[in-house]
């Protein structure tokens, strides 16, 4: 397991306390899990994805990640409609381990982009991790 100072936590994305991240890309938001989350889970062997067109409110469960150790729920950091899922993960779930930031999970069209303000920046997220 990585030490906190070894974690890769980019500056340009928003983090949730559930260890998901959200990144604005034009009108849409990409969602994935943080380096901390993938490191804690260990080798990911299966990703259960939602369907395109599904709608969620911030904090809703939108899928699951199965590692060799456990199955974990995925919670959406910002409400909206799913406009794409990363289909590459169906055959290659290990992409999330290899790089959790290029290994995005879903792309959403947010209902209210302002919800991003409620999420954590890199420093605030680091504080949360130090508390765990």
């Amino acid at each position, binding site marked *: 397991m990585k030490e906190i100072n070894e974690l890769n936590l980019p500056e340009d994305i928003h983090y949730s306390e559930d260890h998901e991240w959200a990144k604005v890309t034009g009108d849409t938001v990409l969602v994935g899990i943080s380096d901390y989350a993938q490191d804690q889970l260990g080798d990911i062997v*299966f990703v*259960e994805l939602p369907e395109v067109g599904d709608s969620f409110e911030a904090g809703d469960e939108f899928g699951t990640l*199965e*590692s*060799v*150790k*456990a*199955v974990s*729920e995925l919670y959406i950091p910002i409400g909206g409609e799913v406009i794409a899922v990363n289909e590459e993960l169906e055959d290659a779930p290990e992409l999330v381990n290899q790089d959790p930031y290029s290994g995005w999970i879903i792309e959403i069209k947010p209902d209210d982009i302002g919800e991003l303000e409620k999420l954590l920046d890199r420093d605030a997220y680091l504080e949360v991790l130090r508390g765990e």
Partner: protein
Amino acid sequence: MRYLPHTEADIKVMFDAIGVKDFEELFRTVPEACRYDRVMELPESKTEWSLDQYMGEVRSMMTVTPAHSVLIGAGRYRHHIPATIPNVMGRSEFLTAYTPYQPEMAQGTLQGLFEYQTLTARLLGVDVANASMYDGATGLAEALLMGLRVEKKKTRIALSTAIHPHFRDVVATYFQPTDYEIVELPSLEDGRTDLSRLGAEEGLAAVALQSPNFFGVVEDIEAAAAAVHEVGALCVACFSEPLAFGLFKSPGSCGADIVCGEGQSLGIPVSFGGPGLGMFGCRETFVRNMPGRLVGETKDLDGKRGYVLTLSTREQHIRREKATSNICSNQGICTLTAAMYMASLGGTGLRKLARLNYDKSEYLKKGLQEAGARCCFSAPTFNEFVVEFKHDFSKTRKKLVEQGIVAGLDLARFYPGFENRYLFCVTETVPKEVLDSVISEVKK
């Protein structure tokens, strides 16, 4: 492993260790209303010889003894159990090992379970089979819950009324605390399930049929699966007599998505209605939603073949309330028994035995019809069928019991309007003379 009760001294040591005075204090956290506050009225213990004598007395009071020929199936089937089965199963490594899932300790049992899964998958025509459920009825309830997990947004399921009434009762018990709705599908004149109104039902996650059904009738699973898929639901095919698949096409090969049922026929005695064996399999795409344990084959550090539990992350000891099921165990003894039975008979043996059941059953069906009874359903049957008698059959039945034959099950108990209709079962164990006696008694 030995099973020894605690002595008073053992109990005192344990009480002292945790600092409680007595049982009263130990169970104080259990709400008062949930505790039994009276003295247990248990009879005095008996010596071994007086217990033997007592059991002998009870036996002599029973109307039906092991010497009787029983022409009733209805979920429990009297098949011959080859002497090799109890002999091999009697080995203590198989018989006394409780939940032996530690791969470093239990390669023999795990391999046995793996072989069971392989044989079951072939018999049922499914991609994957689990290491068993408790019995056919709970297997069906779990299959329907699985259907609702797969079809997440739906909240309704449909059940054929030709499914064993006890199976349907268990399903109702499982579903009672949920908000899911159960729709009942009636049967047609020929004894098969009526699927014509399926199109009018909305939001069905799964539709369940039994084949052969409770009336012994073989359902057209191929057509049913197509009709069920048409409305976007999963087709669940259950069974109470797996021997039928020695002769008829397996439910999986007919397009059923989940196949489940009772495996008692495969080397397990009828007993008093239990224990049973829940056989369960499905398409590979649904494997992560399948309840129960799964044994997989792997390689150890030296590259040698070995067996381990696989996909355990779905289960309750890891996933708690989010688990695919609350069954985290399996019917180890019955499962291994069934594996030994299937392996002993082989494909050819199963086919021959199934044929024998079918032929004997057809012999009685034809004979009863010639004796004046009416065959209620025109669809093909396996080793069970329903006939209706012109005159009150209960008197004839009583006479046959006196001759050592228990002939048929009165269906009016289960289905209103089925007065004087009886469900008969003939397995390989019933001699021809017995069938002739029944036919001639009906003729009188």
